[in-house]
């Protein structure tokens, strides 16, 4: 455990020293405070912030993940020569990156909100956004790590990681829409709840939108969603789905690295 903590600590400081993560946090600080101060309407700025978070957090996590994994390859090889458990090395690197990304994301948004001094209800909405953003960071970082370990070629790995992000962010929704149009004659509300559960970005979006006034626009579909996600059980299921998105790739990743010949 000690070796794991040491590696996490090392990766964490290593990443902080590169300034990129700091910039990432500063970006969120700037955008959150701009939205909160200049729009005047909390809900509106939260919706805009949601758009930014859902676009940027997965993308940046993917890019950072692949870059970090490929760039620290030499150091990884050095570590592999030491008497340390393999899983500790890779888990440590993953946790170091994820924690630093999460931290700067949450600090960026959180600081802006603390200065803005919103109400309790607003802070619960914002907390939800931070939670979803953090989970997305963890998900897309591990996906990026998994892809990087599968492909020796840097460019190929990078391309495929981006493709996965593109699938989750855009293509999935396009196929979803096509599915809804094709099977329009059937009652699709429950099916669409199911489809949403499989995409972490869609799931985060719905989880936050349902808490806001925008939910009224969803009409009957919204009522079905509300009925599912509004319950304790639905919330549990959706967070389980998000956590599964971390755990499953993580297991695959650990298994892959423990058998990989470096």
């Amino acid at each position: 455990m000690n070796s794991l903590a040491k590696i996490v600590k090392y990766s964490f400081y290593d990443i902080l020293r590169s300034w990129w993560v700091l910039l990432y946090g500063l970006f969120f600080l700037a955008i959150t405070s701009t939205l909160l101060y200049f729009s005047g309407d909390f809900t509106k700025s939260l919706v805009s912030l949601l758009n930014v978070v859902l676009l940027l957090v997965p993308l940046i996590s993917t890019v950072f993940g692949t870059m970090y994994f490929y760039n620290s390859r030499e150091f990884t090889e050095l570590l592999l020569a030491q008497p340390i458990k393999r899983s500790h090395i890779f888990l440590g690197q993953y946790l170091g990156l994820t924690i630093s990304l999460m931290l700067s994301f949450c600090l960026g948004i959180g600081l802006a909100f603390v200065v803005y001094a919103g109400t309790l209800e607003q802070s619960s909405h914002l907390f939800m956004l931070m939670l979803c953003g953090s989970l997305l960071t963890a998900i897309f970082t591990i996906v990026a790590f998994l892809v990087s370990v599968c492909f020796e070629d840097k460019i190929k790995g990078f391309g495929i990681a981006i493709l996965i992000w593109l699938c989750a962010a855009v293509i999935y929704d396009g196929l979803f829409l096509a599915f809804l149009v094709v099977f329009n004659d059937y009652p699709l509300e429950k099916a669409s709840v199911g489809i949403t559960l499989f995409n972490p970005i869609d799931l985060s979006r719905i989880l936050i939108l349902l808490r806001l006034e925008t939910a009224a626009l969803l009409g009957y579909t919204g009522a079905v969603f509300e009925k599912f996600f509004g319950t304790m059980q639905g919330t549990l299921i959706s967070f389980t789905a998000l956590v599964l998105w971390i755990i499953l790739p993580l297991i695959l990743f650990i298994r892959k690295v423990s058998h990989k010949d470096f």
Partner: protein
Amino acid sequence: MEMLTNTYSHFIQHKHTHNFSVGVVAALLSKTVCMLSILLIVTYQLTYAQTLEVRKTGPIQSIKKAIQLAQPHDTISIREGIYLESEIIIDKPLTIIGRNNPVIDGQLTGEIITIQADSVVLEGVTLQNVKTSAIKDYAAVRISRSKHCTIRNNHIKNAFFGIYLEKADSCRVQNNRIHSQAKMESTSGNGIHVWYCNTMLIEGNQVSGHRDGIYFEFVSGSKISGNTSTLNLRYGLHFMFSNGNEYRKNHFIKNGSGVAVMYAKEIVMEENTFENNWGAAAYGILLKDITDSRIEKNRFVQNTVGIHAEGTNRTLIQHNEFSQNGWALRMMGSCEDLRFENNNFISNTFEVATSNNYTSSNTFTGNYWSSYTGYDLDKDGVGDVAHKPVKLFTYLMEDVPTSMVLIRSLFIDLLELAEKVAPVLTPTNVQDTQPSIHLNHW
């Protein structure tokens, strides 16, 4: 006058002149008598129309007794205090005035005041606690088959129905405050309920916490103005089968479903504010089967749907402001000859949605659209490119309502971007060919 007549009828027979003058005197006399008798009647009225005072410590301690004692056209003045009375029936023309805010408490037993006579005035009293019933519509004040009654400056609290007018004519309901705490639609009544009436004036009232704030059914030639109807369970104003009415300068805020105007002709709606009617089944205003009407200078702010129109024909919609609504406008295919002129559409999530059987016979001209991305080369204030307010996603959504779950997703944003790059993607069933570049002012 006799002299004049004499001079002129110099050659006419004396007898004739005499007869003529007698006639004039007689006419004058009868006129005087007539005047005198009118004066007498008036003085009689003045002398004998008394004021009865109802006072907790006086000779008349109950309102019912005062009504029993009163002659028609008397005034009953109710002094301060709480009067535990209900089922008060006013069957003669009386003026009832509350002094120092007396309270009539119905103790949840039934109706408080029923007016069955013409020209009754009820003013300045607080009426509270009316029984809720599933069988009878108990009201704080009911005007039944009467004319020229006035209900003003009263405060009605915790009533099933507030003011109930049935088959009444030319009555005024002014400046009343009607508040209740309705929980369920099935166990609550309307604030001001008007049924089968003519030429009513509903003015300056504040209604909240009822089922419908103001309810109109089979009413004609009436005015609703300056009222505020908020936080009602269903509609702020519910309006049916009522032709030739107008409503002006009312505020309908945070009602469960907004305002519904249905099955009516020749309605004028001006300078009203429809605000914050937000919910899965809420509208700023629901128009159903409305013909030959005018909707002008209203403000629709933060409603799920600004105007939802179904079967609405030959109506002019101009100088309205639609801002921050989910949909500014939703039109079904059954709408024809609607003219949308010089309205402002500002930051609505969706501007116009139409059902997919929509064929355009409605026209949009000179509206300002905040999402307009065209240009105005000749600087005449009119955009050179037509604005198409129905976007691809809006169009799809009417067909596949479930696709709404994709709102605010990156895919939909990209779809909108694609429409900007390739305008051919945007449906053209609704177009404003002369969009205004600047906000319209009126």
